């Protein structure tokens, strides 16, 4: 992952959760509101991001690079890249979304949230609880009331929580 010298461009190191280091141009990370503020406030050359897995960070850096290269002529190509970008297992997509939210990369956040929404919209309540690790805090009576109101909610066909 180590990169050679990049001339006069400012270099920054991001440290993922598993201590893997990513060296990249400072201009790239400015797309993140969080990192932008960090870089502005004090001259830092290394930023630890212990809550973000390296795997997730790799994906996000890939996006930042592509997004920085976006021009009116490769718009279509970028759109396809975006589509492929979110075409990962749901668990990974959620990891990315949480990280993007933390890093405050606004355009990408919007896109990730829509992708998550599209993936969960046809799932059953049980599946959604599993995906978001939520324990139901309704009483059995309340639960049965919901079942009466929207029986289809509990009989979802797509109960696969990984996709």
């Amino acid at each position, binding site marked *: 992952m180590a990169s050679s010298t990049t001339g006069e461009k400012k270099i920054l190191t991001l440290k993922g959760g598993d201590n893997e280091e990513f060296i990249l141009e400072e201009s790239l990370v400015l797309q993140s509101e969080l990192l932008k503020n960090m870089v502005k406030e004090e001259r830092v050359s290394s930023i630890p991001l212990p809550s973000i897995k390296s795997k997730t960070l790799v994906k996000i850096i890939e996006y930042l690079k592509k997004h920085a290269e976006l021009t009116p002529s490769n718009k279509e190509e970028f759109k396809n890249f975006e589509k492929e970008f979110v075409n990962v297992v749901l*668990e990974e997509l959620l990891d990315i979304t949480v990280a993007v939210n933390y890093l405050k990369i606004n355009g990408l956040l919007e896109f990730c949230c829509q992708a998550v929404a599209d993936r969960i919209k046809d799932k059953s309540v049980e599946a959604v609880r599993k995906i*978001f690790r939520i324990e139901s805090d309704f009483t059995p009576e309340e639960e049965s009331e919901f079942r009466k109101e*929207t029986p289809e909610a509990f009989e979802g066909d797509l109960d696969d929580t990984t996709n």
Partner: protein
Amino acid sequence: MESERDEASNRHSKRSKHTKRAQLPSNSASNRHPKGRKRTKRAQFPSNSIQDSNLTIPALPPELITEILSKLPVKSLLKFRSVSKSWLAIISSPEFIKTHLSLSANKNKEETHHMLILGLSGPKWKFKDCPLSSLFCDSVVNEVFDLVYPIKNASKDISIVGSCNGLILLAHYSEYSLLWNPTIRKCKKLPDFRPRLKINNYAVYGFGYDEFHDDYKVIGIFNNYGGSDYVEVKMYSLKSDSWTSVDYCGEILNASGSSQKMKLTGSGLFVNGKLHWDTITSGPVVRTGKNIISFDLANEKWEKLEKPLVGENELCVGMMGSDLSVFCGYEETYLGAWVMKEYGVKESWVKMFTIEYPKGQYLYPPFFMSSKREILVVFGSTFMIYSSKDHSVRYTYVTNSGDCSLMEIYIESLVCPFSTEGRENATKEREKLRSKQSE
């Protein structure tokens, strides 16, 4: 593990179409099966794969949950209210309902959240709806869903007055009116207001949203059929759940000095925060007037707008997208339509199109213009799409829309017809349900 997941994701994409269909209502037979399928899935993905990752996935912050939820369609949100108390609280909060509505309206450009509701007459009245986008995409629309008739007695006809932010106003003559959100399946009968004109009156309604007061309002105009010129105007506010009296627009309506008395007709069209009615002479020979009368829901003022001058033609008022429009049938085989591009500016009336239409057919005013500048025109049971780009015309066949006599476009929303204080009322409803169950 990795390859297994990829396989599964492929299967998912292949199955996604099938899944949609399985979610259709009244599919109880197919609903029984998924349990079996669930079991096979679980066998493929050992449950500990989720437990393992428990350690690594950070909890989603509440604002992120809200952001994701705001991008879901209403039907999914109704379902996910039962995920947990915190999800229920988010989904029923007035702020969320508003954000969700404005997001859906913005997606408006793709018509993804728009539905066409059809009223079907017969011994029993029926309402059906279908996604508006399907009318533009497919040549045959099969996804037409039955809606639960909002009143018990389906032999009574109720007409569609108008729709705004997902709420539809229905009325049964001057007897009663209802606010209905078919997406969340909630309906409210508006309170009676004891009109002074008890019998023999002719009612004209309008429904819209008062942004200034954040309130939904209904206007009812009650004319006496014979004899007296007395007209009663009432305004209902959803926030206060009550009717108040409003002045009539008599002076503005008859200001032209003509000997012919004019009156308002049709349903009020909601454009630019105001309701708009067409005008007609009050008989014996009925002629369409040259003016449109508007009522501002925020300041309660009546105003007059002039229709464009187009020869001797009588122009009827309609809507195209969010613009006010007028249209006329030339010799009943050609349809011409104009749009007021800049609200309130008489000079901005622009001719949109002239199209040929099947002879002897009744014309429905709800035209809709899509993001691709295609216009939906309905004659009787014929759904025609006119492209303003190349002036081409194509037809869409809608299954079982044969004897359709009412039509309106609405947006899917969570807006509750009970009151803007949605959460409070949701709890009340819940308590009511509970007490009913215990009885």
